[in-house]
């Protein structure tokens, strides 16, 4: 983002004292357009400003050309929009110092040279709307030596205002940079002994290269502390023996060992899925289950077969489920039970279960909801009445046995009672609910059953 050495040379050639003295301003401007492309204009401008700031253009003619070139770079555009507008304003109105400590401000970082009246006049003309032909055809020397014209104050306050507005939009941090190049004349050195050659070298050092000092600024810098390492407990892995040898494949020792008891039980179960068993058959099955606590797992019952069993042999289903209460599969059986088609038998099974063991509340609630919705959707009027009566009796039993907490289902059950109020049992259930509500039965006030 800086000039190349060749470009720098080209610029310095244009600004060279010889060329400045010999060519007209117009010729020099054309030269710039010939040697630089529009995309490099900003770099050229930056370099010119740097030269001005650091007093590296000692002769007034050179400065004059520098101003002209700086203006020329962005000639077509409104002055306030060009990047170097503030430079012109600063040159015309050097900030005068409201110094905080009373002493006059002598220098400030990036200070621009103070101008002679002729220079100021020239600059004013350059910036105002008047025709520039009068001086562009002249050389810089001619311009300077021309008679100082009568003072014609020009008002740039519009531009100043625009610039100030632009500035105020910038965050403070953007406005704090100072150039990193600081003039530091050596002690006791004689002035004006420098030769141009060493100046060129100096300028090239400042203005060229990838990180040219002219592009850099120093801004007040924060101290940003890096965070400490997280300090925590028991982070590293401590290794303890895990005895991987513990876990080995196992041999199935039941290979070719016919399971006689299981076989007979299974045969009975197979019948039980299809039709009701006779009393002796039931007895036999139940006794066998009683005798061998693990047999229940070997009778071939799976959750998907449960509905058939419930429909055909509710008594067996109840016993089997009670035996499976400890099994990890019991939730799956429950889930089947709750979702199966509602019937007298399924209700009987659920009723027996509720009075014998603790069923999960969600399960009971889900079952009741299912019952109610079945009653509501069934088409056959006769069946509907039958089912409603059943559900009502079932619910009464649940309530009286304190198996459900009515309050949790109150609205649903009440709506159900009202919908079927033509049926005697529903009316009875409704009365029971009302009694509960009024506290007559003292059931409502009692806390819901503790789930032991």
């Amino acid at each position, binding site marked *: 983002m800086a000039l190349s050495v060749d470009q720098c040379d080209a610029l310095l050639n244009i600004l060279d004292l010889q060329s400045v003295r010999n060519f007209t301003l117009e010729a020099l401007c054309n030269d710039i357009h010939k040697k630089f492309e529009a995309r490099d204009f900003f770099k050229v401008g930056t370099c010119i400003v740097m030269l001005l700031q650091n007093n590296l253009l000692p002769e007034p003619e050179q400065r004059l050309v520098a101003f002209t070139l700086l203006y020329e770079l962005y000639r077509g555009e409104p002055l306030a929009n060009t990047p170097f507008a503030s430079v012109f304003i600063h040159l015309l109105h050097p900030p005068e110092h409201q110094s905080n*400590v009373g002493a006059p401000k002598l220098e400030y970082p990036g200070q621009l040279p103070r101008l002679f009246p002729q220079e100021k006049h020239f600059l004013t003309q350059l910036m105002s709307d008047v025709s520039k032909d009068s001086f562009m055809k002249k050389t810089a020397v001619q311009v300077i030596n021309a008679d100082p014209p009568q003072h014609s104050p020009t008002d740039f306050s519009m531009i100043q205002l625009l610039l100030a507005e632009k500035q105020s939009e910038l965050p403070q941090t953007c406005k704090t940079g100072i150039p990193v190049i600081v003039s530091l*004349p050596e002690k006791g050195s004689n002035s004006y002994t420098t030769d141009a050659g*060493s100046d060129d070298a100096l300028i090239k050092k400042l203005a060229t290269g990838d990180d040219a000092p002219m592009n850099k600024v120093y801004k007040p810098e924060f101290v*940003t502390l890096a965070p400490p390492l997280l300090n925590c407990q028991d982070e590293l892995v401590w290794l303890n023996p895990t005895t991987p040898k513990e876990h080995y*494949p196992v041999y*199935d*020792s039941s290979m070719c060992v016919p399971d006689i008891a299981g076989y007979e039980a299974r045969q009975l179960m197979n019948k039980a899925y299809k039709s009701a068993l006779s009393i002796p058959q039931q007895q036999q099955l139940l006794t066998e289950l009683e005798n061998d606590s693990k047999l229940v797992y070997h009778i071939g019952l799976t959750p998907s077969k449960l509905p058939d069993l419930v429909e055909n042999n509710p008594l067996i289903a109840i016993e089997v489920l009670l035996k499976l209460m400890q099994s990890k599969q019991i939730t799956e059986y429950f889930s089947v039970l709750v979702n199966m088609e509602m019937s007298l038998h399924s209700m009987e099974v659920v009723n027996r279960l509720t009075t014998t063991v603790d069923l999960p509340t969600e399960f009971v609630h889900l079952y009741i909801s299912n019952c109610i919705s079945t009653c509501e959707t069934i088409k056959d009027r006769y069946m509907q009445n039958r089912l409603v009566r059943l559900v009502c009796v079932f619910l009464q039993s649940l309530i009286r046995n304190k198996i459900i907490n009515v309050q949790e289902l109150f609205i649903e059950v009440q709506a159900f009672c009202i919908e079927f109020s033509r049926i005697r049992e529903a009316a009875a259930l409704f009365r029971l609910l009302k009694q509960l509500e009024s506290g007559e039965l003292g059931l409502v006030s009692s806390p819901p059953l503790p789930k032991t």
Partner: protein
Amino acid sequence: MADKAEKDQEKPPEIVSDQEKDLAQNALAEFKKKNYAACLQCINKLENRSNDLRVAHNKAVAEFFKSDCKKTEQFQKNLTAICNQFLVRAEKLDDVEHSIIQFNQAVILYHQKQYTAAQRIMDRVCKFIEPMEESLAKQVSLLAIELQLCFREPEKALTLINYLENNLMYGGSIPLKSFDKAGKEKKVQLPPPKPLSEEFEKKLLRYKLRCYIINHSLNTAFKEVQVLMKDKSNIDALFLAANIEYLKGNVRESMKILSSIPNDALRFSDCGESSTIMFYNNMGVIHHAIGKPNLACHYFQMALKEDINLCQSNSKKGNEEKPLHMLGGSRYHELMYNLGISLLHAHKPVQAFDCLIVAVRRYHRNSRLWMRIAECCIMVHKESNEVDFEKQKNLIVDIVGTKDKQKVILTTNLSSDKKYSSESQSYAVPVPSLEFASLCLRNALLLVPPSSDSASTPDPLFLIPGVTPPAPPPPPSASPSNPLDGREVTQLRNAILIAAAYVSLCLGDYVIALEHAQEVLDGESASDVHRLLAHLYAAEALILMDKITDAIEHLNPENIKSLSFDLPSTLDKSEKVQLRTNPPPKWFPNNLTSAHVVMQYNMAVAKTIRGQLDQASAILKQIWQQRSSVCRVPSHIVMLFIYIELQLGLIDFQVINFFLLTGHTDVAKNLIRQYSVQQQRLTS
């Protein structure tokens, strides 16, 4: 459909000829005697039972054992083939008879360290634990327990242990809670407990101890371990006891116990694990805890060498040749994790980064590990905060020209925290850069475990029968480390946010930086150090956002009253023994005054930016007076002095010239002295 049809058709009544029965008996007997060849012969004679799942299964098992348990891959293939043939599917397992083959598959997966896959199978298999005969039930339970320990789920493991104990002692047939609802409380008659064998009881105790250790229930663990310690030759007990002592902070005792373990107590080729590796590793862990990370690294490297040695010497012959129990024996990833953390603490962030990147491939759901990787990146970027406090700093980059044209080129920045890069390189390249750190921290933040009180969602009660819902991915955990408790999670979250704020600030993303810093300040609790940093980062971000007034509030030294690394102590209700395993924290600035100086300095910067140069310069003078051997001041202070003086136009260039050009040894000091003189002159 096919399996449906098969199910409806009742299995043929088991017609087993007497001859077949005898063959099976013989096969079993030979298997028990470990005559696998003879066993196989018997099984092969049962070939006309080609439709018998158990025959096919046992044949595969016997073949596997005949190969000295080395042909694991073949075994696995055989089992899969049998499952396909007999339509056994884990997700629809509803027959006890299929549980053995499934269990065997889970065993293999466990040894291959595919714990999630193993767990999925075991979830189903465990449902049939009641019908299983006792020895199988034991095997199944133990694997289930071990898997829970692999997942660092001590509560679940303890539930399983309890269940197993009950099941074994009471036969599992007694409903745990059963009473007659009619009111008659049916007293459950527990049969007299069946005593477990002493050996098995010890085995269970070992599992329990591992749970307690993961849980950090140190008191219980300490009591229980004494039972095992009665047997002085119990290697497991010694390791566990050393672990407990280490957690309690008794490092000497811990080292003593470790050293008492004979060198080759557990040989890798016999046990599938090596006590030597454990010893080196655990010694490393102890040294890390007492703040000797370099020594710790040494131990970890020894352990790694041993691990690579053992595992590679065996893998040369190909995976097929390794017996099952050695498959998962390598502790490479855990060791790399430990080594990485220790290297980081030993200020070797680049090496640490390489180790942790290896570890994270396995433990990619570990929030803290991602955070550690980010810390490596940060440390590579800025080794220590002390660089900002060094006496000597190059204020001047170059001096060009001579005589009256002499130009001094000042530095643009003294510290190199900020790195606003416009390179289009992807952030995701795993190199220790700030860009990569920002990705790591994003991962870390997403993976912070939920605080301990919010329990994980319970399994849904009602399932579609016979179909297991797809297992959810394992929850974020601290694996391979033990789980974090609530306070540690808070600390971790704060640390991640702070690191993320720092990285964002350095990368120029100050809006995000402010968000993170503010989140720490708004959080329920944060350590003093984290609050200090949050204030500093918030202030810097706010200034960059041109909200200087807000920023100055953050920089008030009153905001920070002490400099502790711990969360403000709450009334700890738990009577848990305090863990003492953290290395002593190290950080610069290490005292409150230094920390305040940094706040003040940044305050001076804020004022300078706002144009209040005289106030800023007063603050700088105040800081300068505070400096001492205890309280070091940032080296930026000199540069800010120069800046302010340049802005005020007061600088005496000749004086600076003198000091800057000659005083390279002690530029700052002389310069400042000069300034003080100048200031006095001006104020008087």
